[in-house]
């Protein structure tokens, strides 16, 4: 309980950094040994007293950095570690993907970006070099504000009660998501879904342009749809 006790007291104490250090060592060891490693193995590998190792493991499980598997004796890295992974830059999309996105850009007046979805997380895979994103950090954080985020939210709330109202209903009815004025009062964004063979939402091709164009995209929508259809098999 060393971490817990220290956290309850104001200020840093001499013991706290050591406890945190030990916790990270345990986390590191689970990553090194792979899923299914047991508490006994961890305490033996780290030459840490068993009671200490078990306490740290249970604390990490409480905080969901670690997860107990199947029969409860084995550990694996949990979803909190996955959240830390937001920090890791996604790999650059393949040449084939970049060629298709560039082709769409050549036909469209405005910023064309490619965003990928992993679970409920949005990541920009290919930003338009000529029309940069105004606030990429807010885009990935505040999903309700952006068209790319709204598309993801609408998809995840498809079966929920909220599906009958607000932007979720609009997006589901339209088949693509739209946002105007959230980042720039005169501009907006339109996100067209890219789906894999099973119809699962994997990415979005988005157009950022003046509000007028976003509200009446006309044949631009055909360009986006065409691009999205060709990107689907490459991104799933």
């Amino acid at each position, binding site marked *: 309980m060393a971490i817990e006790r220290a956290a309850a007291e104001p200020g840093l104490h001499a013991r706290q950094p050591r406890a945190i250090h030990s916790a990270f060592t345990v986390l590191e*060891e689970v990553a*090194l040994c792979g899923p299914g490693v047991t508490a006994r193995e961890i305490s033996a590998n780290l030459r840490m007293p068993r009671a200490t190792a078990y306490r740290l493991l249970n604390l990490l*499980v409480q905080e969901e950095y670690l*997860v107990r598997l199947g029969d409860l004796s084995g550990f694996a*890295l949990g979803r909190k570690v996955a959240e*830390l992974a937001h920090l890791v830059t996604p790999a650059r999309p393949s040449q084939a993907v970049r060629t298709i996105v560039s082709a769409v850009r050549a036909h469209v007046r405005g910023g064309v970006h490619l965003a990928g979805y992993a679970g409920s997380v949005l990541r920009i895979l290919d930003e338009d070099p000529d029309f940069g994103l105004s606030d990429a950090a807010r885009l990935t954080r505040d999903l309700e504000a952006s068209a790319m985020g709204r598309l993801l939210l609408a998809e995840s709330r498809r*079966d929920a009660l909220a599906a009958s109202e607000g932007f979720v209903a609009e997006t589901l009815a339209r088949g693509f998501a739209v946002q105007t004025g959230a980042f720039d009062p005169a501009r907006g964004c339109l996100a067209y879904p890219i789906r894999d063979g099973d119809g699962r939402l994997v990415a979005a091709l988005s157009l950022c342009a003046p509000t007028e164009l976003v509200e009446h995209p006309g044949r631009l929508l055909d360009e986006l749809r065409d691009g999205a259809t060709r990107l689907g098999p490459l991104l799933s």
Partner: protein
Amino acid sequence: MDALARAIARPEPVEGLAARSPLAGLARRSVGFADVLAQSVSAVAPAGAAFTTPFLVSAVAGGVSLPAIAAALVIALLTASTINEFTRRMAATGSLYTFVARGLGTAPAFVAGIGLLIGYAFIAMFALAGAGYYMVFLVTRLMPEASLDPMLLGAAAVVVLGVVCFLVLARGIRLSTRVTLLVEATSVALIVGLIVAVLASNAGRVPALVLEPPPFDVQAFAVAATLAITAFVGFESSAALGVEAKRPFANVPRAITWTVLLSGLLYLGATSAQIVGFDVTGLDPATSASPANDLAAAFGVPWAGFVLDVSIATSLFACAVASSTALVRVLFSMGREGLLPASLGTTHPRHRTPFVASVVALPVVTVVPVLMIVAIGGVWAAMTVLIILAAAGYILAYVLACVAAPVFLYRIGELTAWPLVKAAVAAVALTGMAVLYLVEESGGDRAFGVSGFVVLLAVGIAFTRERMLRRPWLRHAIGVYDHAVAGDVLGGIPAAEWVGEEPDRSRRGD
């Protein structure tokens, strides 16, 4: 951070994870710490117990009631800490039943499960009857001219409260826990206010409670501590919310420990206030019919009696809701496993509660106390019998859980010295207390409470044996808990889909 960074960048696939928890259908990870705490606190109903237990305890213990309550608190803490060896590692709806299954196997789990069902069901009946009893008090206080039969009025109140309880339970876990949180917080605040008022107005006498201990009587002390432990039972009930709680491995154990500490401190305070109160007024608690009301009247605050009745009634109602919440979740677990009919293991598609289990359990919990009230001929008399069955059921389940904990820890390779010691001390102390309590009660006029418990336990064991013979595969099905699902684990979902998060998780329950 090499290994960690590598694991994040290229998660190693984890095989064999289900996409859904075996307990899917409940509102998974939806209630926070306050709700989890409310569940445990309400099941104990400290506000209600704070004004009954001290009188019961001081009636047998005389001067040693404070040490007796302190001893009960220590034993309850050891038990809670042992049960937390499970709650820190396993999220289940079956509470102690599931824990014992994972430690000792099927047969002891059935005994623990029956004990727990008896405990939750009879404490819910006790609480409904008690809430009805105090509501009758309130009605006669507010309408003294209305000449109603208190017994029939009490029975009618029990039925009404039972229906309300069912509606709260069926509408969703958040509603149940919010109602209990609000109600219990109000009653505890009222009781604490009264305790502080009594002690503060007689501040000079408080040191004497500690500094001048009365002569120590070992036997009276043991009986009193046993009575006191019955005031703690129910603290583990938040373990039944393992699936529905957010961060269950942190919140459930914390709620259990806090509940024991909070109730213990409240009982110590209430006992001190009563000792001081009777000492100052010169009243005799043994001859007083309604000690709390007499005390309030003697202190010149007769309205306090009214406040007390309200807070005890509400506390007992919260207890009924909380105990039924736990009861239906244990039934739900047994339904999922196949021990009970599978329909009990289904959930309401919209409210995501164990709806069928509620439909089955609540009428029983409501009708039995009504029948007992009519048969015995009084609400209070019926309550004193119901509490015997409840306490015996709980303590049986606690003892088995304490025995199971070290075995469970050994099985997963995490046994150390301290958990073994505390489990052993708690198991021995609880067993001694249970035997003492049942022997004591089997001699009096409530003996049929004890025999009723033995009969119910025997019937339950016979049923589960019969069930096992017909369904041998149950041996492998007992003890379901909330497995880590693919979305919980780094590398659980292949390719780029591994960052499972809230919108996705909440949908998984449907």
